[in-house]
């Protein structure tokens, strides 16, 4: 363990030692998101992820936001365990009938002001599951959605860009209107 930690210390953080495009973009986007988030919500933005029926592909990429390359916690952005601590609900999947109530309750448990981000093609329009009787509809059919992030699944960098777009909008609803037009 000592050599392990020593190496980590000597080599420095992964995010700066790998000046590849993706890492550099990640840092840039995450930093600007952090500054805007601070303006609006003090020094942090708390995100509650809700899988409303996804295939788990989106979850893999959302999890990747916390790895040393994207490392969104550096900027005061963090995933929280309870909707009661959240500012943003990050929802994935077509909303299945079996998850509809749980999603509505999660939304109800989130204090105001709150934003809803629908991540992935399924959350936006049910994706390949569009005609299923087992799906109640896209997230916007259940909750007021402030932003859609396209992709199947959206890569972590796109999710960061999406959260940035959310912060850019003076009013979340306006962003939604733009995304739809």
């Amino acid at each position, binding site marked *: 363990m000592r050599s392990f930690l020593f190496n980590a210390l000597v080599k420095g953080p992964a995010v700066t030692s790998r000046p590849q495009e993706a890492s550099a973009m990640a840092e840039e986007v995450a930093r600007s998101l952090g500054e805007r988030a601070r303006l609006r919500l003090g020094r942090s933005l708390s995100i509650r992820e809700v899988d409303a029926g996804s295939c788990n592909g989106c979850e893999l990429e959302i999890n990747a936001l916390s790895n040393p390359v994207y490392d969104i916690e550096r900027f005061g952005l963090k995933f929280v365990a309870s909707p009661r601590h959240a500012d943003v609900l990050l929802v994935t999947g077509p909303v299945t009938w079996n998850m509809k109530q749980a999603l509505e309750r999660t939304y109800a448990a989130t204090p105001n002001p709150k934003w809803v981000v629908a991540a992935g093609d399924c959350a936006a329009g049910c994706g390949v599951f569009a005609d*299923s009787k087992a*799906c109640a509809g896209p997230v916007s059919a259940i909750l007021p959605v402030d932003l859609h992030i396209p992709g199947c699944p959206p890569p972590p960098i796109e999710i960061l860009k999406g959260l940035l777009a959310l912060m850019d909008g003076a009013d979340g609803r306006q962003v939604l209107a733009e995304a739809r037009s």
Partner: protein
Amino acid sequence: MTDSILGVSDLIAAAAGETCADGYRRIAVTEVEWQALARGCAEGRHDLLALWVDGKRVRIALRDPGTSLRAIVSLDCAGDRYPAIGCFHAPAIRLERAMRDLYGCVPDGLADDRPWLDHGVGPAFGNSSAQGQFYRFLPAEGEGLHQIPVGPVHAGIIEPGHFRFTANGETIVRLEQRFGYTHKGVEALLAGGAIDKAARLAARISGDSTVAYSFAFARAVESICGVEIPQRARLLRGIMAELERISHHISDFGAICNDASVVTINAHCALLRERLLQMADRCFGHRLMMDRIVPGGVVRDLADDDARALRHLLEETAASFANTVRVYDESPSLLDRTVSTGIVTKDLARRFAAGGFVGRASGRDFDSRRDAAYTPYDSLSFTVPTRQRGDVDARAWIRAEETAASIDMILHMLDRLVPGPIRAGSLTPQPGEAAALVEAFRGDVFVTVRLDEQGEVAHCHARDPSWFQWPLLEAAIEGNIVADFPLCNKSFNCSYSGPDL
């Protein structure tokens, strides 16, 4: 005769007909033979690979672990009733409950009459008996017992499911799972669609195993159509499948350590995974390699300089991950959490025919890449690690050892890559039926496809490895403390979306 036991090898020996191109004998049986086969499952004569309903016939896929003979056995279910397998062989219970919800075929004699996928909401299940009903969890009674309900929305970034713990103080006396929250009606969507559409759906049954599902679906369709895919496509499929495996093994190894509060290892593993995904994106055009394998071959070729970069990264990853595993092995405080925690007994792993690292960590020496060999693995030599102790530590070690083996495999396949086509000339759909078994990172995925006269998918069933692993988690957690549940759960890392269909 009513209590007789029948093994699948004996059934095959006695039956007329030939083994199909996909390696399965297809045999229609009587109710008496069906029940004798069910007892055969319980007696360990053969493994139950899958159970599904297609066209008013209930089918089971069986495999004799001794002879490796495989058969798909079907029974007429025209009266919407058939003798339950689950009353003899517990691993079938959830499968039968799911099929009852989806197709209305009632397993006669199954004590558990609760719905599984049907939660009593929405139009998918018609006049559901579950409407307005509370789900009855199995009772656990005793002095000082209390219940802890968890989910479907969990604390972490994971899929939805409900865990009902009954605990005595800190000690779990029973865990009961309830799933179906991510039920998306996959089988109904698959039926009646074109092959291309079905392939995209198959790739999204469980996103973390997208390569394996696409691989299995493609193999089944190719088997029906009698298509041979080019050599280069075979190797590229193998490379993608192994890349998917190591990316998950490495990140789950880190996540296990994370749940034992050693975040450093997790950060290190997450970085290794991220580099692999970025490389997958560079080589194949998608970080998770979704929709890259299609019936007839693969859609994206591997450029020579990308192949060199991949080789370089894998060599680095092998060294770096080996060091990470050594750190794990030299951390007594970490081993204290993982060793002897969440034990799956050998007997249970065998009975449930648990695939992947869950089975192999409990002495079940099965790997479909070797034991139901398919291309390109039939021309590769590789070791299949097994352990006997069945605890969190054993499962973590299987992950580590398989990662090393898979990296060697990819390097070997890269050596053998020669220029050539990556798709078969043409794929002419024809009516027929075929099944395929593919080793995903968490175990064997079974996919069976039936094409109709128009060359469209008439029926498709995919059995995720998690069907036979989730129940073992219920058993493994018994007697452990509540705080060790995340650790045990992560060491399994079962899919929700896969079995929720």
